[in-house]
C-alpha cells in the first residue's frame, strides 16, 4: 500500500510539471489560435538566462549569491522574455496578421530553432544549475497509518503548489479582465478584433510575455530539479500528449491532463512494465493521446469544435 501511494504521488508530482509546460502551450493557443512549437525552446532559453544571470549578477554587483541575487536574476530574465516577446511580435507576427494559421505555426517552428541556437550562444552550452532554495530532502507522511510512512518530495510539493497558483492567476486573468477577453477575441478573428479597437500588436506582446513568464517558472522548477541543459527543450514534447488529453483551450484541462499522464506513466511502468519488459514510461503518454484523438479529439475539457456547413 505504501509503495502504491508513493508511486501514485510520484506520478502526480511529475504530472504537475508536465502540466506547467502544457499551460504554456494552452496560453498561446487560447490567445492566438496557434500551437506554439517554440514553448520548449522558451523554457530552455529562460532557464539558461536565469541560471547564468544568477551567477553573473552577484558577480557584477560584488555580493554573495543568495536570495537577492536570485530575485534580481528572475526580474532580469523576465524583462528579457518580454523583450523576446516584443521582438517576435515586431519581426514575425506583425507580418502574419490575417494570414492562414499554418503560417503562424511555421513561424513558431522558426522561433523555436532561433531560440534553441541563440540561448546556448549567448549564455553558454554547459550544464548549469539553478538553486532557488527549493528543499531537496524528502519527508515522510502518514507514519501512523502505513508502516514506514509514505515518502514525499518537498521539492515536488512546492512545484505543485506553484503550478496551482499559476493556474488560478491565469484563469482570473483570462476570464475576468478586459485584456483576457481581448486575448480570446484575437484568437478567434484578427480582423473583427481590430475593428472593435483591440490593438493586435500589444495583445501579442502581452500573450508572448505571459508565455515567456510561464516558461521561466517551468525552467526554474525543472532546472533546479534536473539542471539546465539542452534536453530541457525536449521535455516540452512530453506536454504534447498532455494538451491533447486535456484540450488545447482549457487551463484546468492542462492540469488534469498532466496529472493523468504523470500517474498513468508511473503506475503502468511499475505494475504493467515487468510483464512486457519495461520501458512503458517513454511511450505511454503518446499511446494514451492517440486513443484520445480517436475518441474525443477536442480533449477532456477543450471547446467542442462545431463547424456549420
Amino acid at each position: 500500500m505504501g509503495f502504491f501511494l508513493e508511486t501514485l504521488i510520484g506520478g502526480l508530482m511529475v504530472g504537475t510539471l508536465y502540466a506547467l509546460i502544457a499551460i504554456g502551450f494552452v496560453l498561446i493557443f487560447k490567445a492566438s489560435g496557434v500551437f506554439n512549437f517554440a514553448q520548449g525552446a522558451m523554457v530552455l532559453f529562460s532557464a539558461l538566462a536565469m541560471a547564468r544571470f544568477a551567477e553573473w549578477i552577484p558577480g557584477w554587483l560584488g555580493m554573495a549569491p543568495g536570495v537577492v541575487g536570485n530575485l534580481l536574476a528572475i526580474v532580469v530574465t523576465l524583462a528579457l522574455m518580454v523583450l523576446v516577446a516584443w521582438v517576435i511580435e515586431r519581426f514575425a507576427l506583425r507580418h502574419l496578421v490575417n494570414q492562414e494559421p499554418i503560417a503562424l505555426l511555421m513561424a513558431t517552428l522558426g522561433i523555436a530553432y532561433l531560440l534553441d541556437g541563440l540561448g546556448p550562444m549567448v549564455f553558454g552550452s554547459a550544464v548549469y544549475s539553478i538553486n532557488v532554495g527549493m528543499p531537496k530532502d524528502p519527508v515522510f507522511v502518514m507514519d501512523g497509518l502505513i508502516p514506514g510512512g509514505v515518502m514525499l518530495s518537498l521539492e515536488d510539493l512546492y512545484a505543485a503548489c506553484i503550478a496551482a497558483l499559476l493556474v488560478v492567476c491565469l484563469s482570473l486573468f483570462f476570464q475576468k479582465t478586459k485584456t483576457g477577453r481581448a486575448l480570446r477575441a484575437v484568437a478567434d478573428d484578427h480582423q473583427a478584433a481590430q475593428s472593435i479597437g483591440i490593438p493586435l500588436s500589444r495583445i501579442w506582446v502581452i500573450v508572448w510575455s505571459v508565455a515567456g513568464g510561464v516558461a521561466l517558472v517551468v525552467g526554474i522548477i525543472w532546472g533546479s530539479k534536473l539542471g539546465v541543459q539542452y534536453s530541457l527543450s525536449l521535455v516540452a514534447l512530453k506536454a504534447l500528449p498532455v494538451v491533447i488529453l486535456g484540450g488545447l483551450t482549457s487551463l484546468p484541462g492542462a492540469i488534469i491532463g498532466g496529472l493523468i499522464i504523470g500517474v498513468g506513466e508511473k503506475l503502468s511502468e511499475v505494475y504493467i512494465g515487468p510483464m512486457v519488459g519495461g520501458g512503458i514510461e517513454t511511450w505511454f503518454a503518446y499511446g494514451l493521446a492517440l486513443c484520445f484523438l480517436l475518441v474525443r479529439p477536442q480533449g477532456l475539457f477543450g471547446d467542442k469544435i462545431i463547424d456549420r456547413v
Partner: protein
Amino acid sequence: MTSKKIGDVILDIKNISLRFGGVKALTDISFNVKEHEIRSIIGPNGAGKSSMLNCINGVYTPQEGSITFRGQTFSHMNSRQVAEMGVARTFQNLALFKGMSVIDNIMTGRNMKIRSNLLLQALRWGPAEREEIAHREKVEHIIDFLEIQAWRKTPVGQLPYGLQKRVDLGRALAMEPQVLLLDEPMAGMNVEEKQDMCRFILDVNDEFGTTIVLIEHDMGVVMDISDRVVVLDYGKKIGDGAPDEVRDNEDVIRAYLGTAH
C-alpha cells in the same frame, strides 16, 4: 418615415482611388455622409462597395484621396484609430468570436471603454466591479434591443446565421459608435429576418441618432430606409442622391439592367 434632424457633414470622402496591383478597385470616389442619416452604397457585385467601406474603416489604405471625419482629415489610418474615433462596423462575411458566448462577444465591443486597473478587474473588486456591472448593463440593454435574450450564454458559433448577424450588429453597437458601417447586414436572410434587421437599423438610427452607412443588395430595403444613396459600378461613382433620384438615373438603370442592343 418620421421626420428626423439630419445634421452637418460628419464624414467627407474626397477623390478616393484604390488599386490592388493593376486592378482599379475604386477610382476617384467622392461623397459625403451627414450626421444622423442612413446613407446606402449600392452597386452590382464587384463594384467596390466593400472596398469603399474598408477604406473608411482603415483596413485598406487608398493610394489617393482623403477622408475627413468630424473635421479631421486623414489619408492613412489603422483600424484601431478608426474604432477609437467612434466608427464601428459589421462584416459581410461574419467575423465573430465563434468560441465566445453572445455576451462575451458583445462585451468585447466595450473593451476600449473599460478603464479600471487590471489587477482589480481580475479580483472583481471595488471600482472594477462597479464598472463591470455598468458595462454589463449596457450589454444587456443591447441584447434586449436585438431580442437575443434567449441565446446570451450560447457560443456564437452554434447560432443560426440570422442570429449571428444580430450579434455582429450588437458588438458594433456596444462601442456606442457615432458612425456605424454595415456591410450587407441582410445578405442571406429570409423576408422575416430582413424585416427584423430593417427595424433594428431604423431603431438604432432613431433612438441613438447613429449615422449609418449601409451596403445592401436588396433594392426594396435600400429604397425604403435610406435617406441618400450612392451608386458604384466598376469602382466609379455613377449616381448619388435621394432614392427616387437614383432610381430614375439612366446610368444606374444601365448598370443594373444593361442596355438594349
